[in-house]
């Protein structure tokens, strides 16, 4: 900090954000680590299929059930497919499911919650009732029921994961919109002749947005776990598509006979991804709202 003595300059928004982020990262190096992991996951998701050493679907029965080696880093499965390639390629699908479901619930829950908090009255009651009804179910069980009823596809896994997270987003958005409803800047906007919808779009939403973004990164981990759990019990993704949950399910049978690598590596990938999202979410929350730091 050499510029303390100098006259304080007014910093641009971006520069201030950058400085603040650097400060937080300095406080908590774990967030930096999580961010690095996140970048790796994104790279694997984007480039995955073009950087892996083997075709994730090509079987080679002469190489079946080989333990990890220099040729096959994570070993091979019962029909000789390379587990490493399959784990890396699966990143794209798992990442897509998590991002899509979180984006969907962000839209549904965030908008419904903001409307409920801002308008109150009937809107509030209806949104609250929907959220309460969803909360009355154990979440994973409801997701199972939804996928079973709507049909066994990846889109429905995304939809089910979004629906079970709806109450969380709706409640946070509602609370945040509600406290800002009577705020000075909203009153000012109203007095200068803005319509309700305009206030909602340009005054309330931009303020609630950062809080919901933090929530998104916190629920990403849960979304991946939920989707992998569903495909573990045989819903959604079908073999031979590489996906972490289904790979663990396929490898599970070999765990009792000692061929651990089939289920272990996809499970580990799943764990690392969830761990990374959780850490990142905590770090982001610290940046946006320092009071909730634990």
């Amino acid at each position, binding site marked *: 900090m050499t510029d303390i003595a100098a006259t304080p300059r007014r910093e641009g928004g971006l520069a201030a954000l950058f400085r603040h982020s650097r400060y937080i990262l300095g406080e908590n190096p774990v967030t930096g680590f999580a961010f690095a992991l996140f970048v790796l996951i994104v790279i694997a998701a984007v480039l995955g299929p073009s950087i892996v050493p083997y075709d994730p679907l090509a079987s080679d029965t002469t190489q079946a059930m080989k333990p990890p080696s220099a040729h096959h880093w994570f070993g091979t499965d019962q029909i000789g497919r390379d587990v490493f390639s399959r784990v890396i390629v699966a990143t794209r699908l798992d990442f897509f499911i998590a991002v899509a479901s979180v984006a969907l619930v962000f839209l549904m829950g965030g908008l419904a919650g903001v409307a409920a908090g801002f308008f109150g009255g009937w809107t509030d009651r209806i949104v609250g*009732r929907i959220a*309460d*009804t969803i909360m*009355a*179910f*154990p*979440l*994973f*069980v*409801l*997701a*199972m*029921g*939804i996928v*079973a*009823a*709507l*049909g066994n596809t990846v889109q429905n896994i995304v939809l089910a994961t979004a629906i079970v997270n709806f109450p969380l987003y709706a409640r946070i958005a509602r609370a945040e919109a509600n406290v800002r409803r009577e705020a000075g800047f909203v009153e000012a906007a109203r007095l200068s002749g803005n319509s309700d919808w305009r206030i909602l779009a340009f005054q309330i939403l931009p303020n609630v947005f950062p809080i919901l973004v933090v929530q998104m990164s916190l629920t990403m*981990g849960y979304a991946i*776990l939920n989707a*992998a*759990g569903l495909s*573990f*019990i*045989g*819903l959604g993704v079908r073999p031979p598509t590489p996906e972490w*949950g289904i790979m*663990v*399910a396929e*490898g*599970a049978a070999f*765990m*009792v*006979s*000692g061929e*651990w690598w089939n*289920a*272990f590596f996809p*499970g*580990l990938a*799943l*764990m690392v991804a*969830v*761990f990374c999202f*959780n*850490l990142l979410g905590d770090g982001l929350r610290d940046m946006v709202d320092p009071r909730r730091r*634990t």
Partner: protein
Amino acid sequence: MLTMILKRAAMAIPSLIGVVIVTFLLTRALPGDPAAYFAGPAATPQAIQEVRVKLGLDKPLIEQFGRYVVDLGHGNLGNSLTTGQPVLTELRTRLPASAELTLLGLLVSIVIAVPLGILAATRPNSLIDHACRVVATLGVSLPVFFTGLILVYVFYYLLGWAPAPLGRLDVFFDPPPQVTGFYLIDSLIARQPELFMASLKQLILPALTLGIFSLAPIARMTRASMLAVLSSDFVRTARASGLSSFTVIVTYAFRNAMLPVITTLGMVFSFLLGANVLVEKVFAWPGIGSYAVEALLASDFAPVQGFVLTMAVMYVALNLMIDVLYGLIDPRVRLEA
């Protein structure tokens, strides 16, 4: 106290109505014609029409819903297509297996998480505090089915301590005469210690899996609420009056710190009941979760619907119990009601 319980019970009614509506709507959302679906793949158009009339699918939606509610009132959840058995009977015979597993899992995690959280709170930034934080973060990141498989690999394959993950009892044993449906309790009632040990051995790994899974929120909450209570005025007064630190922590701080932890149990149950399905699949546990999974894969919807309904009703009931328990522990809640 009674008025409080009644008031709280009345609050559960809208939730139950919501649950019934949602489970009803889920069947109507089935892809294609539900009548063709329930008649089975080999049905003639005539048979489908018969099924449609029999199920009342030719009636308006409201009337169908009324019929569904009346059926529920009579305990009729429909029949399973694959086994032909009434869903209610199957759920009833399988429920004790799931309940025994879930409750033991919860017990395991409370026994580990609560002392861990307290120790972490009494010694902030110590080794045990860091251990608590690591456990809490790892616990939420571990997929429950993955934990189960790792435990199977280590304790069954590598060490040979645990039996094969194949259900509630080894094939050489017969289940105890049914009293509660919990093998641990029934075997004790029947005075068969070997049977008790055999069923305990089968239970340990799945219960531990569930325990590890639900450890994180309980430990985290215990630590946070213990920290808050320990810095409060009455704890300072108790310390200043010269009470031993054990008395202060256990009788004064602990009782007050438990209140938020009990509230978290509601959320923990939501996760536990879901995780139960996955753990049952890993350990071939003959509970209602694996029943629902089998039905799901066979596209047999009635058992799935019955399962979702049962789970939701149990969850609403558990939340009700938690709130009543809260009132019992904290007299202030009773006064407000």
